[in-house]
């Protein structure tokens, strides 16, 4: 009963939160100064013109209207949905690759001290390289790859770049998790005479779950951002990345239009977070790990 109430309350607060953002937007638009708020020469709040801030309902309406004036143009919602699914698919592929690579790295690092001290600095360093810099590299190297009839595509490049962002939190989080069992548990495994593999399954993996879940969530968010940005850098059509650029061009005549793919990106992020939430539900028993036992 209390649980039901809690869930209900969470939904109510969620809706109220969104409503508050929408209300702030429209109230500011209605009563804010035309030129925005300036401190010195710096504009700290935006102009309230229709061009800069379309009404929230206009943005919503825009979804129901055709993308362009062309006779066979699909509704914006259809186009945004397709692009979102495309980007979500690429992000999911990137996430999967990132999780596998991150887990493998974490396993290697937790297995051997030397590997950890040799690898961890590079893992951290890898994230300081800007995405824009690696996109062309990935494409060039990818184009060299040809296994049998398999030819490297731009989609692969985007997925790899998404994976490049996603593997990091997984590697770091899983490493911490794999090292988290306390001494008593490790002693116990040794007393049972079990090897590395067996104690990984019985002890280390289960106790890494509380560290792994936030890492997987972070990886999902990174994969979505990575996929969208990589679509732009690689120049891949069909996803939200290109759509953001294309629709931005229409901003002057159709100010609500550029917002459509942005909402699409938000939806993709929510879908990714929701998927991780389901995963967390499946792994629920292992989340007890954080509870200290006497």
């Amino acid at each position, binding site marked *: 009963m209390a649980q039901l109430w809690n869930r209900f309350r969470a939904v109510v607060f969620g809706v109220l939160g969104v409503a508050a953002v929408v209300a702030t937007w429209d109230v500011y638009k209605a009563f804010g100064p035309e030129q925005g708020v300036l401190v010195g020469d710096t504009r700290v709040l935006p102009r309230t013109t229709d061009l800069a801030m379309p009404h929230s309902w206009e943005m919503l309406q825009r979804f129901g209207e055709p993308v362009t004036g062309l006779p066979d143009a699909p509704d914006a919602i259809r186009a945004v949905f397709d692009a979102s699914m495309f980007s979500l698919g690429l992000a999911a592929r990137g996430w999967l690759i990132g999780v596998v690579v991150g887990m493998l790295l974490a396993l290697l690092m937790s297995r051997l001290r030397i590997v950890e001290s040799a690898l961890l600095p590079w893992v951290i360093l890898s994230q300081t390289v800007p995405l824009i810099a690696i996109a062309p590299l990935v494409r060039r190297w990818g184009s060299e790859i040809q296994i049998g009839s398999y030819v490297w595509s731009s989609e692969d490049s985007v997925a790899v770049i998404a994976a490049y962002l996603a593997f990091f939190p997984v590697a770091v989080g899983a490493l911490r998790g794999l090292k988290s069992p306390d001494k*008593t548990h490790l*002693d116990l495994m040794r*007393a*049972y005479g079990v090897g590395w593999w067996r104690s990984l399954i019985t002890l280390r993996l*289960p106790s890494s779950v509380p560290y792994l879940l936030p890492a997987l969530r972070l990886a999902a968010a990174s994969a979505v951002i990575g996929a969208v940005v990589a679509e732009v850098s690689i120049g891949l059509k069909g996803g939200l990345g290109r759509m953001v650029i294309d629709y931005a061009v229409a901003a002057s005549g159709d100010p609500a239009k550029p917002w459509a793919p942005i909402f699409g990106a938000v939806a993709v992020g929510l879908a990714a977070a929701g998927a991780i939430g389901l995963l967390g539900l499946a792994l629920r028993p*292992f989340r*007890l790990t954080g509870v200290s*036992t006497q």
Partner: protein
Amino acid sequence: MTEPAISVTGVDRVFGKGRKQVVALTDVDLTVADGEFVALIGPSGCGKSTLLRLVADLDTATSGEIKVFGKGARQARLDQDYGIAFQQAGLLPWRTVAGNIELPLKIHGAAPALRKARVAELLELVGLTDFAKNHPDQLSGGMQQRVAIARALAESPRLLLMDEPFGALDEITRERMQNELVRICAETGAAVLFVTHSIPEAVFLSDRVVVMSPRPGRITGIVDVRADGLADHHDRTERARDQEGFFRAVAEVRALLHGGASTSSAGVEPAGVGVEER
């Protein structure tokens, strides 16, 4: 004459090197007979845990020899000749009580039917049958420790190694657990090496109390509680706590702990025979 459960001869354990070197144990000799209950007592840092870990082969001696049932410590560990319990219950929080007790059996490939029967038996033994399906975080500290003991007993080892298993419990729970341990040992006939900080606990539970002193860790004396007129731990009752022999043994252990050097002048020989002559 059967093989002793534990035989430790001339064991040293030195941690670290050079200036930061810590001599945790020097020249330790100790024998625990089959079925005997021996307590290790001494001030913090005197190497009790270290000695127990050496016997369990969780750590390796710098020099000296350790035999468990006549085998090397490593072989004994691999053969699952001992069960072990620590100050921390060390239960896996994602497993139920039954799942935790079952763990060693499962790891060593016991058949499911056998496992189930054994777990039921052990739950009965530690009085937690009603909690089989609970998770450890739903149990009190004392109950968790009982689960840990049941787990240590799962494979019916003939030797139990226990490092302050009741250290974190309150006095009342502690005495109840002690009574239970006496009963369990009587039922299983296992030898026990039991580390503790409490003199009454050591005396109540053991056949012999081994007193250690720190820097460097060594054995300063052994009190044979049986020589004080207390029954073998296998048929010790709670009444033992009020017997005269109990207080005499407590006094002996205390004397050894406080004046390690004056052992022989106090008339307490390592075997504890001096007492009878008084």
